[in-house]
């Protein structure tokens, strides 16, 4: 599995970086130094700082983030780790990178609304050991079109050595028949399922990971 982990100082994906060796065959770390931040330093400090000091600061900021990116690369004890360092805007950079490299999975530590436009499965990692994977299917009507996603989720779950449960709302017997071979299935009341999936997506709870397909 090819994973892309964007790292930014406000969205520092510590849990994802820890999980990566377990989950990914190839890991690309996209270290993004916020361009707006450099511009902000310029605009806030240029009127009062002598140019020698301002040049020093900019150079230092870029260097310290480069060093941090290298430190992250070394911290993942796997061979297939690539680090890409760029100065840019967070969402734009992630979108461009996913379009360019088409990773299997995008990993981050918290729910970020801007990432939902990206057509790559997103893994939101809140740390901790994962013993059980829960897949929520709100409607069985389109079961055929999501079979690939269920397979993908099961593959991830296998890699984590966790048991895999598919929660669904009963009602469609044809859909249920298609679901049975894909994993252990659990019937849930539709309303509870909706609340569960909405909460999990909007605010990923601690010690729980969410895969957005």
């Amino acid at each position, binding site marked *: 599995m090819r994973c892309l982990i964007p790292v930014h*100082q*406000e969205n*520092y994906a*510590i849990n994802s970086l820890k999980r990566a060796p377990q989950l990914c065959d190839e890991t690309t770390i996209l270290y993004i130094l916020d361009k707006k*931040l*450099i511009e*902000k*330093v310029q*605009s*806030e*400090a*240029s*009127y*009062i*700082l*002598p*140019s*020698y*000091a*301002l040049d*020093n*600061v900019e150079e*230092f*900021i870029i260097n*310290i*983030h480069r*060093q*941090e990116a290298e430190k992250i690369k070394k911290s993942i004890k796997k061979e297939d780790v690539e680090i890409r360092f760029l100065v840019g805007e967070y969402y734009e950079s992630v979108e461009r990178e996913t379009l360019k490299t088409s990773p299997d999975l995008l990993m981050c530590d918290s729910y970020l609304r801007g990432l939902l436009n990206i057509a790559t499965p997103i893994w939101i990692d809140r740390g901790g050991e994962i013993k059980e994977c829960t897949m929520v299917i709100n409607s069985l009507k389109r079961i055929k079109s999501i079979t690939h996603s269920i397979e993908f989720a099961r593959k991830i779950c296998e890699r984590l050595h966790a048991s895999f449960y598919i929660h669904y709302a009963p009602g469609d017997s044809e859909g249920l028949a298609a679901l049975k071979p894909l994993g252990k299935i659990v019937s849930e009341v539709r309303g509870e399922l909706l609340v569960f999936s909405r909460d999990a997506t909007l605010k990923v709870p601690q010690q729980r990971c969410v895969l957005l397909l």
Partner: protein
Amino acid sequence: MNEKKLAYLLIAFFILAIFYFIPTPDRLSYHGKMMLGILVFAAFLFISEALPLGMAGLLVMAIPPILGIFPPQEVFGFFGNEAVFFLIGAFILAAGVQKSGMHRRIASHMLRIFGKSSKLYILGILVLASSMSFIISEHAVVALLLPIIGASLITVEKGSNMGKAGMISLTYGATAGSVATLMGGARNPYTVAYLAENYGIHLSFLDWSIMALPVTLIMLPTLWLIITIVHRPERFAPPKIKSEGKMSRQEMVVLGIILFTLTILLIVRSWGIAVAVIIGAVLLFVFDILSWKDIERSMPWGIILLYGGAMTLGKGLQITGASQWLSSSIIGVIGENPYLILLILLIITVLMTEIMSHAAAVSLMLPIGAGIASVSGMSVLVISMAIALAGGFGYTLLIGTPGNIMTYSTGYFKQKDMMKTGVLADLVGIVAVFIMAVWLWPLMGVV
């Protein structure tokens, strides 16, 4: 210029137009009304940053002649003040320190002394940054020390409490130290010039330090407690900092010139504040420490031009009677309780300095505060000093001071980490200045 900034600039002129067309209130002249308009216009420009601050300062100088408030000779004459030349000299002296590398020696020496434990190390960074801000502008101190402190924290994990505490203490130390002497921030000499020009109150370098240094001395241990309690730094093995070896000729010369300059500033009161730093700056050339190219690189024209706008506001409001009218109106609303007035002024100044440059906040608040003091019978000096010192805070927001955003950009802490300590630090700062103004300065004979 992008669309947003253009829109802000148009809004600023719209504000000015509103003042032009509204009827002139009783007991206020047309000139006074328009100076109040320029005050609001400037405040909007400073907050929105529609123009770079230096340009905003220049624009504020250009508007009074257009509106017929002052002839151009008078407005541009406001700029010819010894505080401007003090600033220029101080920036040249700072360039000398930077070029000689003396700041590295001071930093490595102090960090070695304090490098016994993580908490002591935090104290060391605070003391180092604040003491350097006594002779160099606080922002330049952060810029110069950033690579040194950054290198010393290189083994520390990003997101760790030690990293957060270390970087936050760098900017907080510089901020706390900047109020102590006239060299720490441009707002300090501006306050001295404002008081001299408008109220005939002449403060020497020593007078300022005697009044302001206690605030730094109160803030330093308090900031240390706040940072270490909120961020609880983990155990940290400071890297072995190499000794800088023997002092170079350049360092010795610069040290000598700085000491000589400070001695004159402290002893020879009749020379004012600019003569000594100009002599110091010239000596840096005599001893071949600096070249003209160094000067070009060391002069932040933005703050010097902003100063022109600040002086125009200060003197313009005073001469036209707008300051007195505004002060009477404010007192009519909040009453004449001096403690309440002082507290409100301090809170507003600190809030303003969180969203705009220190110098801009002080330049806007000083005419109002001094005017209120004058009308209500309070000490103009006490109120002005309180505003100048409170205008040097800005511990909470990243835009509170350039030092905050510079240290944040290293990635060691997040915005919320600074807010946690900053709110407490600002509150303590307000209390410290309030105590100084109400009890300590009167005890010292300041009236």
